[in-house]
C-alpha cells in the first residue's frame, strides 16, 4: 500500500537523514558511545565534546548561551520542569500563575497539578484570532504572581503570540516568563533576549530530530532558579539528573543546526505552499480559517469545512495524514478546546482539519490535496442533512436540536 501524504508535521517530523547519520556514530563500540559524565577516559571526553557541541547548536538557534541549555526528554518534561520548578522554588514569594486556555496540555495539566498543590492559576481567554489581548494579561497580573507561561506558537492553529510585548509587561514586575517553543523552534526566528523570556521549552522531534529529547532554556542573567524534578547524579547543574543520551542530544543539535541554516529559505517555500493550498480551497463554500492568518507559522493551515464532520472527512481523506479538532478523533468526545477557546462554535470545531506542511512536502502534494478535498467535501455534503438545510435556507441556529 502506498503511504498517505504526510501533512501532520506539527504532530511530529521524520528525522532528517543527515541527522540520523550523525546519531549513528554515537551508539556502537566503533563510535563515541561513552558516558559524557565519565571524566577518567577518552570515551567520556569524546561523548562530552559531542554533547557540548550540540548544546552550542541548540543555544545558537535561540540566541542563548550554551550554559543556559538543560537537556530533558522533550518539551513536556521541559514544561513540567519550568512550571513546577519555578512554582516550588519561588512559592514563598507568591503562589499565583497566569497562562492561556489554548496552551498545550503539557502546560494545562501541569498547572492543574499545581492548583492541587495550593497554587492559584488564571487561565486567560485568547481573542477570536487566537492571540492574547495584552491588556487582559496586564489586568490578570497580581502582586503575588510569580510566573507567566504563554506558548510561542500554538500547535493547532499555528498563531504566533507577541512574546516580546508580553515580556515587556511581565519583566518589569519581576515575574518569571516561560514559553513553550516546541512549535516555533526552527520555523521562525527566536531570540531569548529580544523576546524577554526566562524559560523556553524545546523539542527535537518537531524539528526533524529524534523523539525523546528536548531542552529547557534557563536564563542565567538574571539567574532563574528551579527546584529539580528529577534527582540523581546532579547532571545539568543539578536541574535534571540522569545520564545524558548522547546520540539523542547529538541528533537534536544537528537538527537545530540544520534548521537554523535553512530556516529562511524553508519558511518562504512553506508559505508559498500554504498560500497555494488556501487559494486552491477558496472556491469551496463555507470554509473558515481558524486563527489569524498573518501572524502564523508558514506551514500551518487549520480550516473548518462547515456541515462536514471532521472524523468522517479524515476517513474520506485516507490518502492524507492530517489531524482534526473533531471530538470523534479524540478519546474524550470533546471537540478541540483550542478552537472552542477562540469562540468557534462546536459545529465548526467538529469540522476542522489541521494541515501542517514541512521539509518534505512538495507542490504536487498540495495540488493533490486540493483535488482530493474538492471531491470529498462534495460527497460528504451530499450526505449531510445540515448542508441540505443550509441550501434550503434554514437557519441552523433557529432549530431546536435534541442534544444527546
Amino acid at each position, binding site marked *: 500500500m502506498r503511504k498517505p501524504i504526510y501533512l501532520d508535521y506539527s504532530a511530529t517530523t521524520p528525522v532528517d537523514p543527515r541527522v540520523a547519520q550523525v546519531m549513528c556514530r554515537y551508539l556502537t563500540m566503533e563510535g563515541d558511545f561513552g558516558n559524557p559524565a565519565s571524566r577518567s577516559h577518552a570515551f567520556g571526553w569524546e561523548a562530552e565534546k559531542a554533547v557540548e557541541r550540540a548544546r552550542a547548536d541548540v543555544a545558537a538557534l535561540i540566541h542563548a548561551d550554551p550554559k543556559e541549555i538543560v537537556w530533558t526528554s522533550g518539551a513536556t518534561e521541559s514544561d513540567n520542569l519550568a512550571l513546577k520548578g519555578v512554582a516550588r522554588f519561588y512559592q514563598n514569594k507568591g503562589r499565583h500563575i497566569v497562562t492561556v486556555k489554548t496552551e498545550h496540555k503539557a502546560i494545562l495539566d501541569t498547572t492543574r497539578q499545581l492548583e492541587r498543590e495550593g497554587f492559584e492559576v488564571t487561565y486567560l481567554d485568547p481573542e477570536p484570532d487566537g492571540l492574547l489581548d495584552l491588556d487582559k494579561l496586564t489586568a490578570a497580573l497580581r502582586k503575588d504572581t510569580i510566573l507567566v507561561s504563554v506558548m510561542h506558537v500554538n500547535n493547532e492553529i499555528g498563531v504566533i503570540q507577541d512574546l516580546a510585548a508580553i515580556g515587556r509587561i511581565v519583566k518589569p514586575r519581576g515575574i518569571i516568563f516561560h514559553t513553550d517553543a516546541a512549535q516555533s523552534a526552527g520555523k521562525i526566528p527566536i531570540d531569548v533576549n529580544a523576546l524577554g523570556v526566562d524559560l523556553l521549552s524545546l523539542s527535537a522531534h518537531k524539528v526533524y530530530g529524534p523523539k525523546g529529547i528536548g531542552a529547557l532554556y534557563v536564563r542565567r542573567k538574571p539567574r532563574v532558579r528551579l527546584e529539580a524534578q528529577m534527582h540523581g547524579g546532579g547532571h545539568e547543574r543539578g536541574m535534571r539528573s540522569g545520564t545524558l543520551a548522547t546520540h539523542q542530544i547529538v541528533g537534536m543539535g544537528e537538527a537545530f543546526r540544520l534548521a537554523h541554516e535553512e530556516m529562511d529559505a524553508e519558511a518562504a517555500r512553506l508559505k508559498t505552499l500554504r498560500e497555494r493550498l488556501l487559494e486552491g480551497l477558496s472556491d469551496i463554500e463555507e470554509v473558515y480559517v481558524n486563527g489569524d492568518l498573518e501572524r502564523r507559522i508558514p506551514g500551518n493551515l487549520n480550516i473548518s469545512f462547515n456541515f462536514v464532520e471532521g472524523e*468522517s472527512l479524515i476517513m474520506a481523506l485516507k490518502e492524507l495524514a492530517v489531524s482534526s479538532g473533531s471530538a470523534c478523533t479524540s478519546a474524550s468526545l470533546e*471537540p478541540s478546546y483550542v478552537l472552542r477557546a477562540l469562540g468557534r462554535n462546536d459545529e465548526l470545531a467538529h469540522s476542522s482539519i489541521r494541515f501542517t506542511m514541512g521539509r518534505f512536502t512538495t507542490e504536487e502534494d498540495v495540488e493533490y490535496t486540493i483535488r482530493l478535498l474538492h471531491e470529498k467535501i462534495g460527497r460528504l455534503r451530499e450526505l449531510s442533512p445540515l448542508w441540505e438545510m443550509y441550501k434550503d435556507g434554514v437557519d*441552523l441556529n433557529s432549530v431546536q436540536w435534541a442534544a444527546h
Partner: protein
Amino acid sequence: MAYGSKVLDHYENPRNVGSFDKADPSIGTGMVGAPACGDVMKLQIRVNDDGVIEEARFKTYGCGSAIASSSLLTEWVKGKTLEQAGQIKNTDIAEELALPPVKIHCSVLAEDAIKAAIADYRKKAGKDESVDAA
C-alpha cells in the same frame, strides 16, 4: 480510529442516501442529534397502507460510525412493519457493525432516528402512538 470492514463498507458505499418530501403523508421523518455534539441523523421512511416500510432514505452529519449506523438502518427497516422496525435495538446495530465502545452512541442515535421517524409518520396519519404501542 481503526474501523471494521462493515463500517468502512457502509461509509464508502452508503445505501439509500437522499431525501423524501417531508410533507407527503406517506413519509415519516426523524431528525435526531445536534450539530454541537458532532452528529445529526435524518432518517425518512415511506410507509404503505399496510403499515409496511417500503423505502428508507438517510442523510447523516457525523463520524464514520454514525454514517454507517444510519446506512445499515435503511437496509434493515425496508420491508418491515412499523412495529418490527420500532423494535430494532441499538445493540443489534452496534453488534452488526462491530462498533468500538466509544462509538456506541452512534448506534443509539440510529435507534432514536427510526423511533422518531415512526412517531412522525403516525402523528401525520393521525394515529396516537400510545394506541399502536398497546
